[in-house]
């Protein structure tokens, strides 16, 4: 670890905190339907879209209707992606002449993109046409992110409204998020990325003759426009197989730094939106503090482990940390930081191969996802995941003093706690259950690339990532098989919808409640005690759920490595 490394990490944190307030202010205006500086241009387009689509923007929806709208939107998105992938051979924008994508791979990828997972069983440049990249993947990068944000906003309305029957209008929320938040940022961001060296072309792959006379086919494409939303929407599905490690998908140290910022920017700002909408910004800062504590602890461990290297490297006298699977322009610190960021949020883009990380360095991304990516989280997904833990923490606090727990003026009762527990318990069932199947079913075992405990971690990582809708991978695992295409799709599906539906049920139930004024017996939820309590609840629930699995994977691998065992 070096001073300059820590300076990069601190600079990152400072900018994220500084961005939270102005972005939160702007986004709150957008979600409340107020005027913004973009309204003169965008308002006519927005009104035209509602008119054409038959949306009455004044009419709000009950939480059930809102949820149904979300589900219908997903179904449509699935059909579009699946259709374009199966038909890509006969559709335009296919200069590399890619054939139809197989049924199971199309199914997996369609589920993967509508759930904001963006798991890559496909190899971008070797499988997909430009049309699929744009119409299939780029569009769903926008819409699955907008859906996540809409959902978080609906949940926030549940906390902020009193005796209300409705939680907003999904169609309006998703349209406004896309038009006013995601698109304008992406337009500027795309140009920045091209300036840094990212291609944006519909031309053919380039045939080059290298200095030594060999042929090199260089894949290009409309990369920048997709990468912009891939990072901003915490989607993470790469244009290229190697994702953000590919020099075209992340050309410079600066493009890397901005990409890291854009993963966290909207998620962190949503905590501020929460504070504003419940009428006290300190509530938002308290939640951001919980996230910050968990995040910095993770960064410290991964950075230390990667800088320290492995016993194999030490034995050969190689110093400078574990550079296997990392790029020189990023080095140890930017690779470690990126890995923690991408899994703290539900992004899943990678700028280094997590499979080649040290045992402990690779364990932190795994833990981040198993906690439910509540540290900043995906756009929206992190906030509603975190609020579920807050509900539990408040409930625990209430039990300790024997009072009905309350949070931002709402009583937290049996229904909310049940729904929060449902969401939190279903996820481990998916990733632990499928991992158990994956390590004994012969066709699945054959997919492991590494032997020993590392192979186990590959499987555990895959199902954790799918369930958490993250999408990063221990990429040695051969995921493009019938078994993994189907099981991972089921994990992604459950991971998305068994979060969405309980979260929406909580939103509806909270919105209907009366708001109560804080009294002397109210547990203050803006101070250090609250932050410590939530961190504690997260770590205890997490520790009880997945510590045994971690012991079988990364922990035993670390001990084996120190003992000099190879597999």
């Amino acid at each position, binding site marked *: 670890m070096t001073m300059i490394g820590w300076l990069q990490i601190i600079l990152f944190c400072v900018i994220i905190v500084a961005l939270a307030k102005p972005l939160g202010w702007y986004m709150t205006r957008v979600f409340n339907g107020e005027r913004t500086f973009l309204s003169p241009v965008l308002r006519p387009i927005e009104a035209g879209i509602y008119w054409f689509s038959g949306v009455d923007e004044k009419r709000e929806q009950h939480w059930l209707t809102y949820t149904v709208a979300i589900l219908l939107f997903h179904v449509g998105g699935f059909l579009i992606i699946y259709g374009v992938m199966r038909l890509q051979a006969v559709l335009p924008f296919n200069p590399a002449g890619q054939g139809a994508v197989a049924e199971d791979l199309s199914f997996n990828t369609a589920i993967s993109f509508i759930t904001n997972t963006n798991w890559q069983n496909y*190899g971008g440049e070797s499988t997909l046409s430009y049309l699929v990249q744009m119409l299939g993947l780029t569009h769903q990068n926008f819409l699955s992110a907008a859906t996540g944000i809409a959902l978080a906003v609906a949940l926030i309305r549940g906390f902020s409204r009193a005796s209300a029957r409705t939680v907003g209008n999904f169609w309006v929320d998703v349209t406004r998020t896309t038009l006013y938040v995601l698109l304008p940022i992406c337009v500027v961001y*795309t140009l920045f990325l091209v300036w840094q060296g990212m291609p944006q072309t519909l031309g053919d792959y380039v045939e080059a003759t290298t200095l030594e006379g060999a042929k090199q086919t260089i894949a290009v494409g409309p990369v920048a426009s997709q990468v912009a939303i891939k990072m901003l929407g915490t989607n993470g599905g790469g244009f290229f197989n190697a994702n953000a490690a590919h020099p075209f998908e992340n050309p410079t140290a600066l493009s890397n730094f901005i990409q890291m910022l854009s993963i966290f920017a909207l998620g962190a700002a949503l905590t501020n939106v929460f504070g504003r909408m419940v009428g006290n910004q300190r509530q938002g800062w308290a939640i951001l503090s919980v996230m910050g504590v968990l995040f910095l602890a993770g960064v410290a461990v991964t950075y230390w482990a990667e800088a320290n290297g492995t016993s194999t490297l030490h034995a050969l006298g190689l110093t400078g940390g574990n550079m*296997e*699977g990392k*790029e020189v322009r990023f080095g140890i610190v930017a690779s470690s930081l990126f890995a923690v960021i991408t899994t703290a949020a539900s992004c899943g883009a990678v700028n280094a191969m997590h499979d080649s990380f040290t045992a402990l360095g690779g364990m932190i991304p795994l833990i981040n996802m198993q906690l439910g990516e509540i540290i900043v989280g995906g756009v929206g997904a992190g906030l509603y995941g975190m609020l579920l833990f807050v509900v539990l923490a408040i409930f625990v606090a209430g039990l300790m003093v024997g009072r009905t727990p309350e949070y931002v003026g709402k009583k937290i009762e049996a229904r909310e706690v049940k729904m929060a527990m449902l969401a939190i318990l279903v996820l481990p069932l998916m990733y632990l259950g499928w991992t158990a199947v994956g390590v004994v079913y012969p066709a699945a075992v054959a997919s492991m690339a590494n032997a020993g405990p590392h192979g186990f971690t590959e499987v555990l990582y895959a199902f954790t990532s799918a369930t958490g809708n993250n999408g990063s991978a221990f990429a040695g695992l051969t995921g493009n098989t019938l078994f993994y295409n189907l099981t991972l799709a089921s994990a992604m599906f459950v991971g998305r919808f068994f979060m969405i539906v309980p979260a929406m049920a909580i939103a509806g139930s909270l919105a209907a409640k009366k708001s109560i004024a804080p009294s002397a017996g109210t547990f203050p939820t803006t101070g250090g005690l609250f932050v410590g309590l939530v961190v504690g609840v997260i770590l205890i629930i997490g520790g009880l759920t997945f510590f045994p699995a971690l012991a079988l994977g990364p922990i035993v691998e670390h001990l084996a490595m120190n003992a000099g065992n190879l*597999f």
Partner: protein
Amino acid sequence: MLREIRPAIVLLLVLTVITGLAYPLAMTPIAGALFPARAQGSLIEKDGKVVGSALIGQEFKDDKYFHGRPSATLAPDPNDSTKTVPAPYNAANSGGSNLGPTSKALADRLKEDVDKLRGENSNAAVPVDLVTTSASGLDPDISPEAAQFQVPRVAKARNMPEDTLKQLVASATQGRLLGLLGEPRVNVLALNLALDRVAAK
């Protein structure tokens, strides 16, 4: 509920056209006009022919060139399309080795490469980036130490003084952005092009 059906179809299609077609197709000519070379992939031409991209590494095996990092990229086996074969710096199929910290295959590969490099230059420590594969398999850069490490070999193969090469490496070294972001590095293709130019004089 029924009145949600129309937006579910029409709004989805409208937003799909905006974000999936209008946005990328509009950004392409704008980016192409503002940054013509970069939007096409930062291609480098020599004598009218494309020799590569400034951002994409390529394989160098000849002693008279500086070498990049090992690359783990693959290509379909020409004899059996269900299998793959090693194809270093395949810029149409990026990827890493994905070998873990306790992998025996990785340990064996590292040992072999380290031994080979020690035979080439026994005066300096072997730089770690010169024996580890990159994440993309297309890393265009090596560390300044890795470039300096290769100076004796290249000098011998080209019959050039080592000092000239050391200066060449020093002038090809890029530092951290603002002294803070990223790592010091040398672009291998740029270095070798400069080397060819100097040698031709």
